């Protein structure tokens, strides 16, 4: 490179450093050395819901805010807009992590966060506590979803539950001779299904391995699959590295997983209920999906209000709308998960829907370890000896190799 561009580059680098040095310091520090839980940033809670602001900017999972543009018959956004005057702009977050990143931009009023995002949002000061008395439909939300570790701190709710589901073990009944009853089937180094095992493509999947170890290797003393110290994490990673030799492909979206099971590329692995339903309805492959004896990981989604929401009133109206019986039933059926609203089960178009998804089944729900963000401060109260999600992310890279 001849002189000019290089000197220019140096000049810009210098300027950039100055700018950044100027805005530094604000995010440093924090609770690092102390063994106590880090402080939750103080964010004000809304006292009363006033008139809508006319706009609502959401970050949500695909399928949570349908306005009929994808399918004319699937629309609960336009009626909301008509009822409240709040125009909805939704941004699809493809992963929990993307959602956190999007919320950090400060452009959104609310988010449909899974448990592996909620704590990051709460401790990052990105979301505000929710005044549940301002959300009338909250009263009839399933009790076993209230005041849980992934949606509250102390006894303060930080969101309104929306729906939940489990990460099930699915297999092709024609290809897999003996129905598996344990997650051991996907971790067995001598598996006869080598090359046709599938697993969820996200660092959070490390928790599935930890759950299995929690039940089978008591020496490791794992009490919560999301609270792993270095030794425990290493054990889970080692197990997943073994599994890597069996995996044909990792999946992260429905289409990919359904295709893989229908073509026979995958015959055994993790799944969601909705995927099992889709495969079954296509009739190309016969599958079965269960919660194995160890229990399962799963998700429970919560609508949260941004700390700096520009349209908080519209967001409160939205949270009440989306958990109203009829709408909650619509969303749950479209997305394929158990609705959080207990009254929704009377409103589903498929009358067996809630039974299929175990929506009112507390015992079933109790066997699920819901996705929660791993943090340095252990979720099981052991202090600051645990591994955080950034570490899990890097380990995930190492597992895939």
């Amino acid at each position, binding site marked *: 490179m001849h*002189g000019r561009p290089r000197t220019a580059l140096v000049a810009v680098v210098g300027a950039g450093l100055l700018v950044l040095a100027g805005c530094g310091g604000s995010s440093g520090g924090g609770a690092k050395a102390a063994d106590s839980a880090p402080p939750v940033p103080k964010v004000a809670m809304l006292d009363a819901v006033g008139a809508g602001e006319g706009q609502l900017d959401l970050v949500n999972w695909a399928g949570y805010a349908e306005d009929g543009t994808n399918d004319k018959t699937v629309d609960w956004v336009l009626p909301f807009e008509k009822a409240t005057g709040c125009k909805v702009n939704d941004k699809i977050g493809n992963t929990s992590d993307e959602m956190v990143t999007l919320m950090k931009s400060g452009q959104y009023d609310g988010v449909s966060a899974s448990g592996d995002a909620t704590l990051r949002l709460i401790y990052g000061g990105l979301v505000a506590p929710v005044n549940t008395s301002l959300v009338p439909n909250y009263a009839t939300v399933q009790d076993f979803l209230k005041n849980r570790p992934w949606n509250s701190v102390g006894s303060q709710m930080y969101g309104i539950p929306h729906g939940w589901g489990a990460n099930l073990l699915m297999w092709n009944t024609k290809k897999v001779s003996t129905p598996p009853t344990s997650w051991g089937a996907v971790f067995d180094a001598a598996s006869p299904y080598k090359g046709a095992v599938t697993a969820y493509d996200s660092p959070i999947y490390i928790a599935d391995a930890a759950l299995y170890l929690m039940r089978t290797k008591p020496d490791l003393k794992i009490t919560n699959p999301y609270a792993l110290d270095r030794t425990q994490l290493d054990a889970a990673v080692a197990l997943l590295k073994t599994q890597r030799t069996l995996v044909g492909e990792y999946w992260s979206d429905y289409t990919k997983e359904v295709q893989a099971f229908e073509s026979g590329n995958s015959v055994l692995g993790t799944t969601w209920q909705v995927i099992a339903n889709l495969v079954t309805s*296509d009739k190309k492959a016969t599958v079965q999906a269960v919660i194995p004896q160890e229990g399962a990981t799963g998700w429970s989604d919560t609508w949260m209000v941004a700390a700096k929401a520009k349209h908080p009133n519209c967001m409160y109206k939205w949270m009440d709308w989306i958990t109203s019986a009829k709408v909650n039933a619509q969303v749950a059926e479209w997305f394929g998960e158990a609705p959080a609203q207990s009254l929704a089960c009377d409103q589903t178009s498929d009358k067996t829907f809630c039974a299929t998804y175990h929506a009112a089944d507390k015992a079933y729900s109790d066997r699920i370890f819901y996705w929660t963000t791993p943090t340095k401060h252990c979720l099981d109260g052991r202090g600051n000896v645990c591994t955080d999600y950034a570490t899990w992310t890097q380990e995930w890279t190492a597992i895939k190799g």
Partner: protein
Amino acid sequence: MPSTAGRRLLVATMAVGLLVIYLPLAVVLVNSFNSSRTFSWPPRHFTTHWWSQAWGSAGARSALRVSIEAGLGATAIALVLGTMAAFAVSRYRWFGRDGVSLLLLLPIALPGIVTGIALNNAFRLVGVPFGLLTIIVGHSTFCIVLVYNNALARLRRMGSSLEEASADLGAGIWQTFRYVTFPMLRSALFAGGLLAFALSFDEIIVTTFTSAPGVQTLPLWIFANLFRPNQGPVVNVVAAVLVLLSIVPVWLAQRVSGEPVGARR
């Protein structure tokens, strides 16, 4: 000229090449009629349901509009900046001139994810709100080089004698540009602009990092919908339509420039 055998071999390669190029597109077209919601192969039943659903998809239509707006915006900026840079390089001698091509090429040569993250980070640092504008800025950054290359090649080929003659005859520099340089440059600019538009139209990685809620380009819409069981087949329809529609710009290129888009000299 190659021998007959060589000629046959070339014809065969060309034919096989074209076949391979069009095979996946044919799969897309067939799948747009596949009744399976996850377009599993081979199709069992056929339906036109997805076509009618795509026709009524407001999301796809608005995404198409955003894509066209972003493409036009990025192309316009690329045309202005690329032409200016080409003039500076072809008509003047200056220190650092040799580095220009390299600098212009950098945004397209570096992986989109690098450009995307860098711009995303910078926009947030400066406080630029994300939206159509940030998408246009991102796209034009890597589109400039396409216009620049076309314009530079043309400027070098035509030399500066005509421009000098125009100046000698008393024309001002604006007049010279308007009546002498621009007409000769037009087809090169068109080719470069079309290429820039095409690149912007199908870009997804930089766009992922520079878009905002409610501002979705077509590739982003496709990305969001391809992975949803109820929407995947609609995406196949949109793709099939895009292939058919692409004949328009390619045909336009033939008409206006009298040369294929790719042949840049």
